[in-house]
């Protein structure tokens, strides 16, 4: 796959300091094992309603971070702040160690952040290739370069081992739920993204299809991407996540390696924001 031109992208972003020296920064980022994305002291309110309080969150490369929380805990607002849909009021976002302002969805995708929303945003009447390239079609002589796009789409799907579709020229309407999710993920991965955010990826799926999507998430991790999965389903979370962050009433109350949690403790954090008894765990990391 020939990567789409991205060289100019980082320059046009508002990197607050040290803008010229991106390569040194990424070298340092690799050396120091800095998380790909760091959120620090992020606040967001809508009128009088404080949706996010002092959020601290790390999303390291090559790891799946599960974001758990009850309805209204602020998961979606936090996701949208990272994806550039909302602007945070205070706080900073660091990308590969550099402070950045993500002002629009376009900025996020220039950095390499792609979001797979729950409704997937696929056009049913278009085929898989057409959906994967929607809005970023490749041209030759001002006409669509279908051969080039089909080859690239095929390679991406093969690299994710999405092999169950009969033809990549079939309309998305004829795909199963798991296949649609796979296409949406492949669409996100296509653009050399480094962070993929997935909103409830297994919510509407059956057992076999859920397994298919979870395998796909593991493959993204194995390719070195940072993955953030928003999920209510603790089975999926424990199956796939390397790290778990729990939100409660607009705060990230805990984040740590999956091994230091069990179901009971995650549920307790989700419902009460802390561990009442017995657990003895810290309520705030970092």
């Amino acid at each position, binding site marked *: 796959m020939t990567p789409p031109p991205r060289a100019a992208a980082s320059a046009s972003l508002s990197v607050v300091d040290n803008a010229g020296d991106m390569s040194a920064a990424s070298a340092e980022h690799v050396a120091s094992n800095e998380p790909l994305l760091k959120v620090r002291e992020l606040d967001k309110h809508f009128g009088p309603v404080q949706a996010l309080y002092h959020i601290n969150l790390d999303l390291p490369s090559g790891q799946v971070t599960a974001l758990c929380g009850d309805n209204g805990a602020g998961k979606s607002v936090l996701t949208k702040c990272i994806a550039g849909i909302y602007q945070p009021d205070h706080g900073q976002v660091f990308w590969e160690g550099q402070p950045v302002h993500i002002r629009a*969805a*376009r900025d996020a995708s220039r950095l390499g952040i792609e979001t797979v*929303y729950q*409704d997937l*945003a*696929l*056009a*049913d*009447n*278009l085929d898989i290739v*057409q*959906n994967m390239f*929607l*809005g*970023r*079609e490749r*041209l030759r002589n*001002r*006409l*669509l370069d279908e*051969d080039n796009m*089909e*080859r690239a789409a*095929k390679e991406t799907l093969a690299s994710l081992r999405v*092999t*169950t*579709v*009969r*033809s*990549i*020229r*079939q*309309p998305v*309407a*004829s*795909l*199963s*739920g*798991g*296949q649609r999710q796979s296409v949406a993920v492949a669409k996100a991965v296509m653009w050399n993204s480094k962070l993929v955010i997935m909103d409830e990826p297994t919510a*509407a799926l*059956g057992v*076999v*299809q859920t397994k*298919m999507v979870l395998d796909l998430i593991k493959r993204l991790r194995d390719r070195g991407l940072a993955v953030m999965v928003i999920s209510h389903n603790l089975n999926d979370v424990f199956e796939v996540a390397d790290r778990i962050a729990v939100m409660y009433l607009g705060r990230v109350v805990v984040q740590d390696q999956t091994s230091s949690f069990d179901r009971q403790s995650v549920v307790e954090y989700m419902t009460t924001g802390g561990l009442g008894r017995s657990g003895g765990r810290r309520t705030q990391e970092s």
Partner: protein
Amino acid sequence: MADVPKRADLAEVPPEQAPDLTAAPEAIQAEVPPELVAQTLGEYVRAYAARIRAGESGVLPVIAAMLAIVIVFEVVSPNHLFLSAGNLVNLFQQSAVFMVLAMAEGFALILGEIDLSIGFVGALGAAVTVQLVQPQTTNWPWPAAVAAGLLVATVFGLIQGTLITRLRIPSFIVTLAGYLIANGLFLQVLLLGPFSGYPNLAGFSDNLKVIYNLMWGSIDPTVSWIATAVVVLGLGLLIYLSDNRRRRSGLVAPPTSLTLIKIGLIAVVAVVVVLICNTNRANIGTLEGVPWVIPIVLAVLGVWTVLLQRTRYGRYVYAIGGNPEAARRAGINLSIVRTVAFGLCSFTAGIGMLLYASLLNGMSNNVQGGQYVLYAVAAAVIGGTSLFGGRGKPLHGVLGGLVIGGIYNGMFLVGLSFQWEYIVTGLVLLGAVTIDSLSRRGSASGSVTRV
């Protein structure tokens, strides 16, 4: 998928192409277009049959409708006049107006909208053209007059599109208002000049003749043959080379036999049409050759097919028709794409009604602009364009226009009056819409069972 237990009925499928076990195999087979999965002609025929059984009939209903029209009218028309060369050329000429108007309406339908105004907006543009070429008054050269007429229609469409997208008024209402306004403006334009509301194309001015010849002029038979050969060979070579290239690089492509059949079909249709047109169809003297209107319609078909199927703009039109939210998130500017589509719709309608003016040899207040919109919608839907958005091609307008033209022409031959023509056309439209919504329901329920 390797650790998923195999079901017995899938055991013979090699594991590397094992289908998604969560999907019903027969439903998948029915919904995937056969040319995408078939490796041989036999497989193609079987896949096609499965699709028809599942209600995805494609262009089959329109072909069946055409056959029915031909058989019925050939049998009942006096002296079996229906299939005579003279009548068939006449039928092409009448259908041309429906075809171009249906291609115009296609832009709105693919977006999931509707444009009720195209009959009178096109008529307004055509009236402007017919007025401007009149030697007694303005006497504009015909290219300028045609451009001015098409510009008027296009601007009207762009204004409607702007109101629909910026003010978010439903297209049904905006174009209903546009229908009335264009009707009034059209009648007003007819009153200009010393023609008592009936500017016509009779006269010795070259500019008048060119407009008249759009519909009534013919190409020399020899030239017709040469041009047909060039077009068919060129198109055939293009299709063959492109399919071949895709096959060799392992991309999705139909089997060679299917490519050849497709090219053969195009050649046969072209040869038959030219043969019919090159027959002397005059009662006295000679009248032969392909009418100019046929290459004009084919040019509109070709340009709009390339625009819709091979450019970014066309891709966005389909994406908006299929899922506007997905298009918006992909960074597509919905307002601009929609507004331009309404402009293109009115522009094409301008071409269609200019052909109508040529057919009528002028413009008059008898032009049934409202009637023609309904015929245009009917033709597009009969051809296979969906009223619900996202599906449709310019070719559908041409096929549907031929059906509507066939009914119109046949009923006239038989001597049935207009009321019967309306009733029959209405019934055909109802049938086409029923097929459209049934196939839509069928595929929708199919998807739901597999989510």
